[in-house]
Every structure is written in structure tokens, then in C-alpha cells.
């Protein structure tokens, strides 16, 4: 944890925000006595962080309006498991769990958040968010001649390792030029190029749709062909957005044998479909067959130069041309939609439901559950220089994130799976992603595997591929059977990964537990802590003891069966 960060949240509790920024730097911690006051800040429920206070106030208002009473707080073990899963994509190890649970400091929660967002866990953090964003940007199943999955990941891993500002991240992806794959023959490798390299066919229709959906929360794909039947989306808006992508080309680079080696993204002059590069237009067809013209215009109506030339200086020194993708990135950075889209995505990641469903549709036809909170968080995120780790900190230290998933009579009707808007009065269950499961099993079994890097990622890909189903469209739509259905249960029952995790071989996790000289009750407790972050109930202890008795002489076999059952339970696979 950086000392600067640690000091900051301790300080926040004591002073109005404006004073902090002007005085904290000058006087540091000298003006406060930490201990008691930090505890006070924890008691207030927002750890001295004004953005957390804002979330709590807005969410509480929602409860009052709907006459809901929140559930109690989750236990330390539950909260710890939750935050490891959500921030770094795996459950905590027994040691990590114990050190948190046994800590009696009132500020241990923000301290753990600092640690998970800090240098100690930077590889885990980068791995998790690389997994998440690879799926968002190029889908689950994309590795073909136009897209290099490993190139995409290299860019993402590097970006999340250094906690790239989100606006810069978006700009990198929208404006990327260079080679998409890291090959020794290729100059100017730029892994960010993979976001668009596979989406440029048919004049970049997919690039247009995905850029709007992911970074602006706008579903424009339907308006490619017609005005949207249910919202204000107009066909011209799609093609005006598309016009920003008309200079970019995905060029295939070959080796001698004509196999495609890599894709190079370049910006070239766009002569316009009418042949006048000064006024480079495109044409699109209305449903009634009429043709209409479009120039680059941002979704808020801002027009840019219609020139199709890329920027250059003429002989006389006159500068002409415009880089349309760069202009688009600039407009997106300034747009209020951009921070809203990412805040909604992150909220959905941590709380199980976003303020809208789906999280990437913020259109007027789809009003959010907490509009003031969404807008307010988006503004604060911009003020905080689009720092994703700060946004994460605010969300995970908020009251709704700390609530138990056990519902009560006073809030059981708050259930978004019934189609109601979420009120976040208890924590909503959701299943681990397949990637979380994979990493969590490595942790729970203390498998000594290196988990960072491209080799580990490829191994995981291979395992994940069994769950992928592709829909056979040009858009590369896909889904996963890791969705709580039978193939998933079969994998958890009998798959190789589970066989490894429950192996009794010498030196493995189970053999260590069995041979560690512990009493039976301690062995059982170890298995429960490792997988479920809790001790077994008396009923579970007696069920487990019964197995140990029945399997007398084969203690490790009985432990194996108990461990298999624990790993196969709803409680293990469901983030709660």
C-alpha cells in the first residue's frame, strides 16, 4: 500500500473536502491524532471518503422511497471473499482470509482495499481486468487472422498494471494504429489495435456499433438499417458515427507463403464516396431505397471538419486534414456519456446489477434505477481524472456492497431477477465467471502455478474453450455454457480441473491437510475456510465426521470426498 493513499483516507474523515486538498499536503498527519478519529470515520460508514458518503446517501434514499430496510452487514469472511473475487478474480487463500478476519482494526476494510489495489497484488489485478476487458472488447472466442488475442491481452495487461486513466485507455483503443501482433518482423506493435482490427469489414459497421455500445452505452446497431422503433436512435446517427471510422484501414501483412502474419491498422485519406476529399461524404440507404449522405457528426450533434485527408503540411506550409478517429476520441472524452457508461459497467460488476439492464444501454427508453447516483458518480469519476482504482475503492467501501446477501422480510421483494429495478438493499447473488473459478481453484489448492503472463493465460483459454458457444453471425456473438446448466455441473463433478484440485497425490493440498498432524475437526475446518471462508456448521461437522468414520483407514479418501462436496456446492460457486 502506498503511504500516500493510506494517509489520505484517514484524513478524509476529519475535514471538509475542500480543506483537505488545501491543507493536508502542507500539514500532513500532524494536525490529527489518527486512532480514535479513524475509528470514528469507520463508524460513519464511509471511512472519510466523500464519494462513499455520496453513494450511501443516495442508496439510502432509494430504500426510504421504496420502504425497504437493508439486510445486516455481511460477515468479515463473506466480505473478504467477495472483495477478492471482485477485484482480483479469485477467492482469498486461508492465510489472506485469516489475517483479515483476525485483524481488529476498525479501518481494516479500507486497508485491505488499498492492498488489493496496490503493488502487492498488481499482477492479480491486471490479470483479472485483462480477462474481463478481453471479453468485452473482442468476445470470448476470437482468435483469428484479423485479431490476436494475445496481442490484445498484452496491451490490457500493461495498461491495468500501470492503472491507466480510463480516458486514455478509451483513446488508445479508438485511435490505435500499428501492428496487432507482437512479431519480430512487425514494426510498431500495438496490441490496442486488436479492438478494431476485426471490426473493419463493410466500412467499419462493427467498429461503429461496438465503440458506441462499450464506451458511450449507446445501442446503435439497429439503426444501421432503420430508425430505431423504440427509442430516439436515428439512422443518420449511426452513419454519422460511422463516418469517423472511414479513414482507418486494417491492412493484411503477409509472409512469403501468403499466410497472413499480422494486421496493420493505418489511417489513410478517405476520398469520399462522391470523390471530393475536401468534403468526404458517405452514402447510406434508407428502408425505402433512397440514398442519404452523412459526414462525421458526434452523437451530441457536434460536427467536425468534413475533410477526408489525414493531417499533413502542404509545401507552402499550409496545414490541412483531420484525423477523424482522434477527433472522435476527443469528443468521447468530453462527453458525459463516457463516464456514465463506465460507472454503470463497474457498478454492475461489483453489485451484480447495473443501474440499467443491460449495462451498456443508457438510452432514454431505458431509465436507470438511480439517476442522480449514476450522474453524480460519473461527475466525480471525471473529477478524479478517470482513475479506475479510485472508482473501485468508492464502490467496494460503500454500504450496499457491505450488506449480507441474506434477504429479510423487510427487503425480500427487492429482487431484480423478478424484473424490478434494483434497490441494493441486500447483496445480490451471482455466479463466479469461469475465469474466477479457475483462479479460485488454483488458490484453494495452493497449486504452485505462475498465474501471470501469456503462457498461463493461454492454458486458461484452452480450458475455457469448452464452454464457448458461437452464434454463427458476422458480429461474432457468443455465449458461455458456464451458466449454471448441466455441462457446468458435469465439469465441476468430473472435469480434469476438479480431478486435479481433489487429487490426493503426495505433496498436494489434500495430502498436506491430511498429513499435517491436525485433529479431524481442524482438517475439516481447513477445507471449509479454504473454499467457503467460514467454519462448518455443527450439522456439517457431523456429516463430515460420519464420512471419516465410514471411511476408516482411508482418511485422505474421506477428506477428498468432503473437499469435492465443498467445491461443488452452490455456496462455493456463487459470489455471495
Amino acid at each position, binding site marked *: 500500500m502506498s503511504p500516500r493513499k493510506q494517509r489520505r483516507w484517514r484524513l478524509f474523515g476529519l475535514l471538509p473536502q475542500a480543506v483537505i486538498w488545501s491543507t493536508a499536503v502542507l500539514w500532513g498527519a500532524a494536525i490529527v491524532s489518527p486512532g480514535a478519529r479513524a475509528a470514528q470515520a469507520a463508524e460513519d460508514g464511509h471511512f472519510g471518503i466523500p464519494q462513499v458518503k455520496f453513494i450511501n446517501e443516495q442508496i439510502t434514499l432509494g430504500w426510504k422511497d421504496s420502504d425497504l430496510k437493508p439486510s445486516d452487514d455481511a460477515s468479515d469472511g463473506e466480505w473478504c471473499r467477495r472483495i477478492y473475487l471482485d477485484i482480483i478474480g479469485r477467492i482469498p487463500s486461508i492465510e489472506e482470509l485469516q489475517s483479515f478476519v483476525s485483524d481488529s482494526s476498525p479501518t481494516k476494510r479500507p486497508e485491505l482495499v488499498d492492498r488489493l489495489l496496490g503493488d502487492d497484488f498488481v499482477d492479480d489485478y491486471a490479470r483479472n481486468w485483462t480477462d474481463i476487458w478481453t471479453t468485452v472488447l473482442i468476445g470470448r472466442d476470437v482468435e483469428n487472422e484479423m485479431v490476436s488475442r494475445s496481442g490484445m491481452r498484452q496491451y490490457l495487461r500493461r495498461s491495468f498494471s500501470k492503472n491507466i486513466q480510463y480516458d486514455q485507455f478509451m483513446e488508445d483503443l479508438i485511435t490505435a494504429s500499428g501492428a496487432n501482433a507482437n512479431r519480430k518482423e512487425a514494426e510498431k506493435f500495438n496490441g490496442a489495435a486488436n479492438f478494431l482490427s476485426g471490426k473493419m469489414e463493410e466500412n467499419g459497421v462493427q467498429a461503429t456499433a461496438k465503440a458506441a455500445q462499450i464506451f458511450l452505452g449507446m445501442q446503435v446497431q439497429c439503426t444501421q438499417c432503420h430508425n430505431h422503433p423504440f427509442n430516439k436512435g436515428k439512422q443518420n446517427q449511426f452513419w454519422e458515427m460511422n463516418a469517423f471510422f472511414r479513414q482507418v484501414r486494417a491492412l493484411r501483412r503477409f509472409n512469403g507463403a501468403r499466410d497472413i502474419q499480422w494486421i496493420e491498422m493505418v489511417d489513410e485519406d478517405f476520398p469520399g464516396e462522391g470523390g471530393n476529399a475536401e468534403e468526404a461524404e458517405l452514402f447510406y440507404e434508407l428502408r425505402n431505397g433512397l440514398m442519404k449522405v452523412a459526414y462525421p457528426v458526434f452523437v451530441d450533434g457536434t460536427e467536425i471538419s468534413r475533410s477526408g485527408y489525414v493531417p499533413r503540411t502542404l509545401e507552402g506550409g499550409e496545414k490541412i486534414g483531420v484525423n477523424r478517429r482522434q477527433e472522435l476520441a476527443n469528443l468521447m472524452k468530453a462527453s458525459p456519456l463516457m463516464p456514465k457508461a463506465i460507472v454503470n459497467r463497474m457498478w454492475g460488476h461489483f453489485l451484480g446489477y447495473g443501474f440499467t439492464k443491460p449495462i451498456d444501454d443508457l438510452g432514454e427508453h431505458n431509465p436507470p434505477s438511480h439517476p442522480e447516483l449514476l450522474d453524480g458518480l460519473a461527475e466525480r469519476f471525471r473529477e478524479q481524472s478517470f482513475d479506475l482504482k479510485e472508482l473501485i475503492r468508492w464502490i467496494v467501501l460503500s454500504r450496499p456492497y457491505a450488506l449480507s446477501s441474506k434477504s429479510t422480510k423487510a427487503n425480500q421483494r427487492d429482487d431484480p431477477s423478478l424484473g424490478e429495478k434494483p434497490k441494493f438493499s441486500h447483496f445480490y*447473488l451471482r455466479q463466479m465467471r469461469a475465469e474466477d473459478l479457475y483462479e479460485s481453484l488454483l488458490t484453494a489448492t495452493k497449486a504452485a502455478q505462475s498465474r501471470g503472463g501469456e503462457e498461463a493465460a493461454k492454458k486458461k483459454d484452452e480450458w475455457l474453450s469448452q464452454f464457448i458457444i458461437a452464434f*454463427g453471425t458476422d458480429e461474432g456473438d457468443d455465449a458461455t455454457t458456464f451458466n449454471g446448466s448441466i455441462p457446468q455441473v458435469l*465439469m465441476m463433478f468430473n472435469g480434469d480441473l476438479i480431478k486435479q484440485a481433489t487429487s490426493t497425490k503426495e505433496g498436494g493440498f489434500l495430502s498436506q491437510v491430511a498429513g499435517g498432524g491436525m485433529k479431524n475437526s481442524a482438517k475439516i475446518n481447513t477445507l471449509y475456510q479454504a473454499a467457503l471462508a467460514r467454519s462448518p456448521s455443527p450439522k456439517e461437522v457431523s456429516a463430515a465426521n460420519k464420512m471419516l468414520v465410514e471411511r476408516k483407514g482411508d482418511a485422505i479418501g474421506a477428506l477428498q470426498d468432503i473437499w469435492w462436496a465443498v467445491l461443488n456446492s452452490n455456496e462455493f460457486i456463487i459470489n455471495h
Partner: protein
Amino acid sequence: MSSMFDLPTGMDRRHFMSHLAGAAAMAAPAAAFTNTLLANATDLKKRHKAAILLWMGGGPSTMDIWDLKPGAPTGGQFKQISTSADGVAICEHMPMMAKQMHHMSVVRSMSTREADHMRGRYYMHTGYVPNPNVEHPGYGSVVAHELAEQVAGLEIPPFVSVGSGSVGPGFLGMTWAPFVVDSNGNVRNLDMGIDPTRLSQRLEMLATIENKFIGEKRGGSAEDHKKVIDKTVKLMTSKQMEAFKVMKEPKEVLEKYGTTGFGRGCLLARRLVEAGVPFVEVDLGGWDMHADIFPTLADRKLPELDKAMSALVSDLADRGLLDDTAIIWMGEFSRTPNINGGGGRDHWARSWSVVVGGAGFKRGVVVGETSSDGKEVVSEPYSSQDVMASVLKSLGISLETTFTAKNGRPMKIANSGKVIKDLFT
């Protein structure tokens, strides 16, 4: 692939089940599945209704397959040929289906509004447009839910999706989710490799943990998890899993369906229907032909479709299964009558065709009509709901059936679609 019955070595099914029965005496949770196992030793030869959906992912150009417009500027490159059904002509690249058209009927007056892949896929599978507040069940889940009872002792999932996974069960819950397999019928991870006593001990321990978590009222997915586990256990120990072993078919049968993924899938569908599965979806993707549509159709896609689909129809007819088995051929939409600059056709939902046959459907007829350029429906237009209502009627499922969505809202089956009268006598 080995099944539960190959293990442990030397143990036959009867022996295996007696183990399970013994174990079940100690293990209440395991007893439920063991009892069904023992009760269902009889074969499932009884007649039952079923449906096979041939899903054409990507949006096939129906005016190049089922509703040709030769001579029109939009008509494309293909000729039409006459078929075994009086007055029904289809594409020249479907010669084998042309001999089976007396078993099938074409609805040429589909008119829908969803021309985005995911929206169209959802709409054509469920009869509803996507709605952020409700997830509707797809065809397979609806039919399986209504027909599962008819086959007592069905141990394999009542809704199997071969290929791309169909659309989910929506508010009907995960127990009605599609069971997704590849076209060779491979089911991964079927084999636990331990003896039945141990399996039942494991399941007893597992049930203890599951029930504790469910009892804490954290949400419906905790309970769903347990239900799916119960189904999985049933499936792992079932002899009916033989139905998935499509490669055990005689060589000439395999060849008749074609050595393509779709051909295997269609053959697998027939085997599953024979085994009692009420709904099978077989997917053939790759119809999203924005460029070079005519060579792609003529050289690749239509031959693959023609061979497999004609084999399925004739095989079901020969085995006497067609009168109880509905076949539905459709995609999420069709393609523009106008041919674009790249020699392709783009997304189009306003005027297109689906094909149905078998079960209670009238066969060998064409319903509805499009204009001479294919751009308009000039007879009564039909929707996804109407097709769904008609399929349900052909299977004898009451259209008065009403589901209750999770929020308590009543939902009429097939979204109150109206039966396409001309598809019935």
C-alpha cells in the same frame, strides 16, 4: 467416450444400480434419483410428440431458397425447380429437399421487425421482443416444459441444443435450460470414475451444504443450483445417454445425412427424438452473407442444408415418427431483396419465409405470398408468435396455457400468437 456404466470395470448396470440402491438407504438426497432409475428400467417406446428446430443462424436469404423471384431485378442468380408437392417450387440447389416437399409446408408471408442478430434471435425463439425486465423462455424450454410429462422416466434433458446453445429458459428457470452438445453428440465429463457408494456419500455431503445455503434465503440461484445438480446426477447414471452416440449409426446412415456438422446434428436429433426427448434444436450458422452470396449458397451452404434436411425428413417419415414430430426451419430474419455492391444481401425482416412440417401440420402447401420483387408481403402477414402458436397446436399443446413470470405477471403461451389456419386441415 466412456459412460458411467463402463466403470468400475466389470460392473454391469444391474450391479451398479444395486449399489446405488444400497447407498441410497443411507442417503436421503440420493434416494430420489435412485428411485427414478429403478422405476424406469422399461424402454421408452411409447409414442410421444416432439419438435426439431433447424435454426439457421445469421439470417438465411429465403428468397434464394423457398420463395424465388426469377426474372425480377432482385431475383438473384438461381432458377427454381418443381417439387414433390403440387405447385410448390424451390431453389435448384435444393434437389433432394424437392423430393421431400410433400412432407413440408412453406409460409412465405413472414413479416417481422427485428433485423439485429441478437434481437432477432431472441424474438424468433421466444415470440417476444427483448425486454429488460423479463427474460422469456425460448421454444425449446416451452415445449420441453409442456411435454416433459408425456415420457415417464426420461432421464436425459428434455431440451437438447446441438451447436450454438439456442435461447435460455427465461423465467421457467435453469432446469429448462438447453443441454448443449456438439454435433457428434459428445458430452464432456460424464465419468466420475468412483464407485456408486462413494458417489452417494459425496452427494449426501453436498446436499448438506447446499441445503444450508438455500435455507439462508439469499436468492433463487442457490436453489436452481441444486435442481440442476439433481438433473445432472440422473443423467450421469442413465442408460438413455446412449442416444447421444451418433457415431454408432451404420455407415450408410451417417453418409445419408452428410459428413457435415449439421448432418450429424440432424441425425443426432432423430436419435434423441426416438429416445423420448421432446425438443431438439440443431444449428447451422454462417448465413450472414453480406458479400458474395450466390457462390456461397450454391457451392457450400445449400448442398449441406439440402442433404441433411432431406435425410432427416425422409428418415422420420420412414420410421413413422414424422406424424408426431414437428420440424421447423427458420433463422432470425432474412436478407434484403436488393443485392448490394459486394454481391451480398443485408439484413431484412419485412418479407420472408419459414418452413414447417410433420406432426399436426398440413403438408405440401404454400401459405402466403410476397410481391414480385420480394419486398412486400401481399397476403396476411405472420409473426414469430403466429409460427409459435402453430407449432404448439401441431404438437397438441393448449394455447390457453398461461405461465406466471417470476414477478407474478401472467404470460400467455406464444405471446397470444394466432394459429396460421392454412397450415391445418
